[in-house]
């Protein structure tokens, strides 16, 4: 276990270093942030002075050295736009993204598991065929289109749900949460549905096909021969085995979900990391870009490690340390 964690940390560090370097090596070419800071009629000399002050005129190596040194102390640079340390900005935005991903994952789980299992157990029934048909159409609709349609129908035409933003949030120990107010939850509905729409069909199909495969196995037949109840066979014997590949794939999909927050947050103006990332691209707020990459990289490594540990817990034939 210990060796496993050490290995993971080393891996994470390498990933971070690579990301840091990539991010950084293009940093001084990413447009000129100074122009966004000053009014248009400011003179060239004033701008030059500001560049000097920001250290934008130093050589690449000097800047990279400074970046690495600061990164050691948890300082990933200073956001030009927010006038605050980039990490602080990201940590302020993270709750919004995490809550969105959480809500979307919840929707995915709550729908895909029952639907997937049902259509695996009763593949010939109408509902199963219907679910499969809907899911393949679902896979084929880009998430931004889903989002647009949702806004148009539920916000603009029906006036049922708000169309943008997070609504009212509550500060819980420094975590800006939208889960605790009715307004916040109402704002969460459309974005989380939109975000889940890309993964939901995939998960239904995945759970269905895995479950069908498991139901064909000898040990399930044996379980029937032992006279166990259907519930026990489906929910314990089959489902637990179905979970294994679903968890592995789920870990990867969670990463994809985070990527798709960039799309969803943009359409819904959801004040999370993804939205911030695209704005940072437009503003050439390079410190924020690099910090975002590093944080998301770290997030992926953590998620994968957790997935591996959970996998190890559920699958007795795999010990965590050997992975």
């Amino acid at each position, binding site marked *: 276990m210990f060796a496993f964690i050490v290995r993971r940390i080393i891996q994470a560090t390498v990933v971070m270093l690579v990301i840091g370097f990539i991010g950084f090596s293009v940093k001084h070419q990413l447009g*000129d942030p100074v122009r966004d800071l000053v009014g248009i009629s400011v003179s060239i000399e004033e701008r030059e002075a500001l560049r000097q002050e920001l250290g934008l005129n130093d050589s690449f190596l000097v800047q990279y050295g400074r970046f690495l040194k600061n990164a050691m102390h948890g300082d990933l640079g200073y956001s*030009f736009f927010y006038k605050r340390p980039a990490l602080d900005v990201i940590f302020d935005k993270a709750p919004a993204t995490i809550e969105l991903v959480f809500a979307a994952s919840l929707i995915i789980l709550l729908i895909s598991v029952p639907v997937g299992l049902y259509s695996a157990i009763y593949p010939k029934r109408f509902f199963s065929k219907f679910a499969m048909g809907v899911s393949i159409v679902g896979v084929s609709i880009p998430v931004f289109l889903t989002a647009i349609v949702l806004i148009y129908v539920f916000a603009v035409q029906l006036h049922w749900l708000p*169309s*943008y933003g997070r609504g009212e949030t509550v500060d819980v120990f420094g975590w800006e949460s939208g889960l605790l107010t009715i307004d916040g939850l109402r704002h969460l509905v459309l974005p989380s549905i939109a975000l889940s729409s890309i993964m939901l069909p995939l998960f239904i199909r995945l759970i269905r096909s895995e479950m069908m495969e498991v139901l064909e196995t000898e040990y399930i037949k044996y379980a029937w021969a032992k006279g166990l109840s259907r519930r026990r066979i489906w929910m314990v014997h089959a489902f637990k085995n179905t979970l294994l590949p679903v968890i592995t794939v789920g870990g990867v999909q969670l990463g994809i979900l985070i990527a798709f927050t960039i799309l969803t947050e943009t359409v819904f103006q959801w004040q999370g990391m993804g939205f911030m990332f695209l704005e940072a691209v437009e503003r050439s707020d390079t410190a924020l870009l690099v910090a975002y990459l590093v944080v998301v990289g770290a997030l992926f490594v953590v998620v994968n490690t957790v997935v591996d540990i959970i996998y190890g817990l559920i699958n007795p034939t795999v010990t965590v340390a050997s992975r």
Partner: protein
Amino acid sequence: MKGFKIISLLLMLLIASTAGAKTLKLAMDADPVSLDPHVQLSGGMLQYSHTVFDPLVRWTQDMKFEPRLAEKWERIDANTMRFHLRKGVKFHSGNPFTAKDIVWTIDRLKKSQDFKGLFEPFTSAVAVDDFTVDVKTTKPYALLLNMATYVFAMDSVFYTGTDANGQEKDIILKTGASFALDNESGTGPFIVAEREQGVKMVYKRFAAYWDTKSPGNVDEVVLTPIKKDPTRVAALLSGDVDFIMPVSPQDFKIVGNAKGINLVTMSGGRVITFQLNQESRPEFKDVRVRQAIAYAVNNEGIVKKIMKGTATTAGQQGPKGYVGYKESLTPRYDIAKAKELMKAAGFEKGFEVSMMAPNNRYVSDEKIAEAVASMLSKIGIKVNLKTMPKAQYWPEFDNRAADIMMIGWHSDTEDSGNFSEFLAMCFDKDAGYGQYNAGNYCNEKVDALVLGAQVETDLAKRAIMLQEVEQILYDDAAFIPMHWQHLSWAAKNNVKLEAIVNAQNFPYFGDLVVE
């Protein structure tokens, strides 16, 4: 959900009618970048300044000066203007407002990177007594009152000393944390109650506001930045917000037709132009080629189709109402004439040029550029167009990276001279003239006239000089003017926005009435 919505709406109405507390939910394309009014000279920051601070004087809808913190003013000599200040005004901090604060504010303006250029003609401000200030300039300065609209009184006591980090409280930092970044004390109608940058800003009515005659009855303004045009419109249509600005042209129809929503537009002062670089493209040195391009561009079509009528076609720099405006200088779309001129210049077969334009700076900037490119191809000029976000565009613009560059300009002084100083005068790095003249157009006569107008205090003479400048630029086809963007706002019908908007796009939220 719907039931809940109705109940909450009823509740809101109930509260509103009994307690009289009125909240305005406002959505703009961006929120203020700082609480320090001197950190950036931009429309957004000036809008913020008018909400939280008060200027000496401000513009009315008909472009007149309205006394605010200055009750009266008089010219003492050619270089001095005396302002008599309002008495009994308090800052948000509770400190009383005096002449000292104006002197302090002007001093700070002269230190600000963004404002120091504008206040360069100002030598000093002197407090004569607690409520009288003399403002002195180096030379006779015609635009002194125009500049007074930028003097938003800051609380000199509040901003003096050092903060918790040992940093001077009055420091102006563009990229770092400063006291003024997160704290404000102005005399304006609203106090910043809450601010989360890029997410939300909450203004609360200042209880001790001096202007008790103002009809304004909004107690709280919640500003949410919504950058994407459709999302902002959706927010208004779905009832999530009460007031949006700006409204993009393509949404005029739906917003205008929407029940219970009021759309207001007004012609603004920002001109959109294309500059033809005579250095990188020798063909542009030929006045006939430049004229041909001016004739080839269908301003009317672009305004009608792309801007959906939300712009006024332009044949010169400053719009109507500016002193240099000359009625006769109108767009001259005539393809046949354009082709003739090209032939006369010996470019019947045309040539190839590059063009650059931003894609997120001006209203429909990318589409305008595409349309112009397509129009030029009709007279044989093949255009290779590149569009990019403004963060990348400005460095390219500085390098004059393409043969044709797009630039929009709004005069900070609300005066015609400002256009020419930045866009049309010969490039002079030291004097700071022609800084945005990517066409490298240079005409000594224009320079002389513009410089002369700076010191000419006889307004009638000055107007003639500036009109002559426009005439020369028109005849020379020094640049290709497109149109002046309209300003647009939309709100629910109970929000009386017509009364508070103006051509400067500084809605005076303090005076806003919500029924």
